[in-house]
């Protein structure tokens, strides 16, 4: 079933009764060529690209909850490619290109809106750093415009430009950055994978990974044993627990990151605005809610809710940046569990077990990486070779110290990102 404008109009005449569920609800088969543990955005995208790019369709995605119920439905939906370091830069550049073709490719409206993203700066030193980042982005083939104060004032007139502590000197404008409807991305990939024959199995928790003689043989689940020639672990937020089933310890600490949304308002914030000095960023959803967030709570947590001091800090930063926001009322806040790696960059790699692959460590930047991660992980699982744009995301870079990607420049140890 293809979606089209004509179809929407037609269904309007017939009481919307023609719509069908967009993916099947199959029972697990006893054996697959490949099993993906984790039906989040990355896992579904992996299954989709395994089928589409590599013709591997005897594939199951095992999800312990429901599709769209994890971090892919709990983030702040920002899509961008404004990374600086080699290794990250080419990966996110590739991912953004996949975003730009995603809706046509999936025949699914993910409401991808390239409304532009502005990273603000507040000193000469910061301006230099952002000019350098902008040049790196342009060298990568992406877009970046360095704005001065007046340039920012033209597009974001509501900011507090004369703030005593953080006067706005300008911003790095990334016009192709923006947002997307987060759970539609999960649904779109689930539908696309299902249409190509992938089994999406919900309410199916993996409880063990079967390994014999250093080779993966399958998984144990709450819905029985499933044999598989290849197994991919894509369970950000729970990577440590699942990796432990394969006898691995990961360079990951789980932290909670909070986000907030206000009641629906008329359109006021047309872009994504990032205020790095206050660890604050904001956009407005198509429903009208202001969606914003801050930094980690900075202690290991699986609670999916944060503490009050970080809420206070985020509200402080919001008021510092745009005092008008004081009139908005916060509707709700929530916390997501982040796989934090020592250098703040992700991992897409083989493991010491033959046939077992892992995709994890997305820190607080997993959403924009959904298509790129799925594409590169599928490439690795299907061919056994790293996909060039993701070749830097090695698991062993911490051990050998080669190719660390510390984007923030704060160091490559836990609790610094």
């Amino acid at each position, binding site marked *: 079933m293809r979606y089209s404008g004509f179809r929407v109009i037609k269904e309007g005449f017939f009481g919307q009764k023609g719509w069908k569920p967009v993916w099947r609800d199959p029972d697990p088969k006893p054996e697959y060529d490949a099993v993906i543990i984790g039906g989040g955005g990355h896992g579904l995208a992996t299954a989709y690209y395994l089928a589409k790019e590599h013709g591997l369709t005897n594939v199951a995605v095992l999800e312990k909850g429901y599709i769209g119920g994890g971090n892919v439905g709990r983030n702040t939906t920002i899509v961008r490619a404004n990374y600086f370091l080699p290794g990250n830069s080419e990966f996110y550049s590739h991912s953004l290109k996949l975003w730009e073709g995603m809706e046509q490719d999936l025949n699914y409206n993910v409401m991808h809106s390239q409304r532009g993203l502005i990273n603000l700066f507040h000193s000469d030193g910061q301006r230099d750093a952002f000019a350098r980042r902008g040049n790196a982005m342009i060298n990568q083939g992406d877009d970046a415009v360095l704005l001065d104060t007046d340039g920012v004032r033209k597009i974001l007139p509501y900011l507090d430009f004369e703030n005593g502590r953080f006067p706005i000197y300008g911003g790095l404008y990334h016009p192709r950055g923006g947002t997307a409807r987060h759970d539609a991305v999960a649904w779109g990939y689930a539908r696309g994978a299902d249409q190509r024959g992938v089994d999406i199995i919900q309410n199916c928790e993996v409880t063990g990974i079967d390994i014999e003689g250093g080779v993966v043989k399958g998984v144990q689940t709450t819905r029985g044993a499933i044999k598989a020639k290849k197994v991919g672990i894509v369970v950000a937020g*729970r990577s*440590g*627990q699942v990796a*432990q089933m394969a006898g691995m*310890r*990961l*360079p*990951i*600490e*789980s932290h909670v990151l909070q986000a907030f949304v206000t009641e629906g308002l008329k359109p006021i914030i047309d872009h994504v605005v990032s205020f790095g000095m206050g660890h604050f960023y904001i956009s407005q959803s198509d429903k009208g809610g202001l969606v914003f967030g801050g930094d980690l709570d*900075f*202690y*290991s*947590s*699986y*609670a999916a809710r944060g*503490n009050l*001091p970080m809420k206070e800090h985020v509200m402080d930063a919001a008021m510092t940046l745009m005092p008008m926001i004081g009139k908005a009322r916060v509707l709700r806040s929530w916390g997501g569990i982040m796989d934090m790696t*020592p250098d703040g960059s992700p991992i897409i790699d083989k493991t010491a077990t033959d046939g077992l692959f892992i995709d994890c460590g997305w820190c607080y930047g997993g959403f924009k990486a959904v298509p790129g991660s799925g594409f590169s992980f599928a490439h690795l699982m299907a061919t056994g070779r790293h996909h060039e744009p993701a070749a830097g995301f090695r698991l062993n870079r*911490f*051990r050998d110290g080669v190719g660390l990607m510390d984007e923030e420049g704060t160091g490559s*140890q*836990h*609790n610094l990102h």
Partner: protein
Amino acid sequence: MRITCPNCGERDRREFYYQGDALALTRPAPDAGPHAWDDYLHNRDNPAGDTQDLWFHEAGCGAWIVVNRNTVTHAIDDTRLAATVKR
């Protein structure tokens, strides 16, 4: 979240700096080899449940504190001075 400092009593979480897993107290020998050091510096059990963290009472007495904490509920059931932990 409030943390009981063994010296100062129950205090606001904001007075403390979080260092991470208390495995920092079991530092490998200098010649233990790269695998032991990689494990110590980077790899973590990262449990969903009971854990032992190191917190620094930065805005208080300056003590390093070992905190027994549940990462799912944020409940804290024991705190003691890192200086008194046997190595």
